[in-house]
């Protein structure tokens, strides 16, 4: 059963919000966008490259760790 308590954001939500806020991800990940490289995966690669992480386009623990670090609110890719 879904928890009645407020739950922490899932890693996916953290990542999506991060990419929207700092790397101008505008598209929400939807089943249709799963054909080919999704915008989210492409922009995630951009973020991984910026932070000198291994560029996989996949949300891994190293990438998530960077996303959770305290930081400046100015985006890397301006809208």
């Amino acid at each position, binding site marked *: 059963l879904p928890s009645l308590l407020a739950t922490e954001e899932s890693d996916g939500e953290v990542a999506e919000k991060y990419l929207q806020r700092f790397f101008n991800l505008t598209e929400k990940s939807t089943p249709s966008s799963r054909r080919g490289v999704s915008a989210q995966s492409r922009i995630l690669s951009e973020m991984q490259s910026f932070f000198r992480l291994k560029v996989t386009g996949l949300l891994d623990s190293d990438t998530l760790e960077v996303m959770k*670090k305290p930081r400046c609110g100015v985006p890397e890719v301006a809208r």
Partner: protein
Amino acid sequence: YSTFGQNLKWQTNKLTFRIVNYTPDMPQSDVDNAIEKALQVWARVTPLRFSRIYAGTADIMISFGSRDHGDFYPFDGPDGTLAHAFAPSQGIGGDAHFDDDETFTFRSSRGYNLFLVAAHEFGHSLGLSHSRDPGALMYPVYSYRDPTTFVLPRDDVNGIQSLYGSNPDVSVVKPEPEGPTTPNACDPQLVLDAVTTLRGEMFFFKDSFFWRSSTYSRRAEQHLIKSYWPDGPNNIDAAYESRSADRVFLIKGRKVWSLYGYTVERGYPKSLKSLGLSKSVRKVNAAFHDQESGKTIFFVGDYYYSYDESRRVMDRGYPKRVDEGFPGMTGEVTAAFQHRGFTYIFSGPQMFEYSFRSKRLFRVLRNSYFLRC
């Protein structure tokens, strides 16, 4: 470094700033100090000059707010986003906003150091965007550095001078010390300060940085030492792990720090004597702990000492010459550690792979062998 673009810069070198309100975290005088010091970081290397106004609209309006504070970029509560600022332009351009759900401090490493956060945001106020250089002030992720010894890193100096040029008064003012550059793990001439294991990972220290590498991570991560251990030392001489005590010891000069995870243990730094070394030892070049024999080996100049951790005494018959224990090692030992039963001795840009027990030299490798270049 990167900029918002050549035309997104101030067209005058004389800028005004105004501190609109204050955070309750710090005395107002400390806020004033932190802000002025942060602006001077940029003034010292450019023609830019800042003057404070107390009313009306300044080029750089500085304020503290939380959540939605009226600029369509709401803050997010504690941690996460700490502050933001706007590129040079009329109106909101240049303004810097600080998230008052954070705890800001001035001199300590507790909370977020307002001077460091402000200096970063004022880089944006002046036209710099984020840098990919993890040692740069304009790197987007916060990391603590000692504000009393802070020098604007070379990457940031290059960035701001690409917009405004250098400080014309430098001939009058004491020349600015050269900003630190960020060491490159894949530099073939890289000479490491120290290497140690830490709970199954490998830590390679250089200047104020370390690289963290593990067999699981696909890439060595580079961090500022002080982003992990704010009260730890930069530019260390040696490091080793005592697995039985679950501690890592960092040695710098005649002092030793004990790390337990992210914590620098109370009562440290202590003197080298606490490691069993005699008073005559002034500097340790490298150290490692041999799992098999339970000895900790300290390299001092051309010699090495052997300390028996279980009996807590220095072994008799030491110091011995390094090339006696490690045949073929004639250069200065700069770092040492053990990994999967092999003992790695670093000398300059080379790493020598030994069996500590048989004294056999297997291979000579590059320093970056474990750094996954």
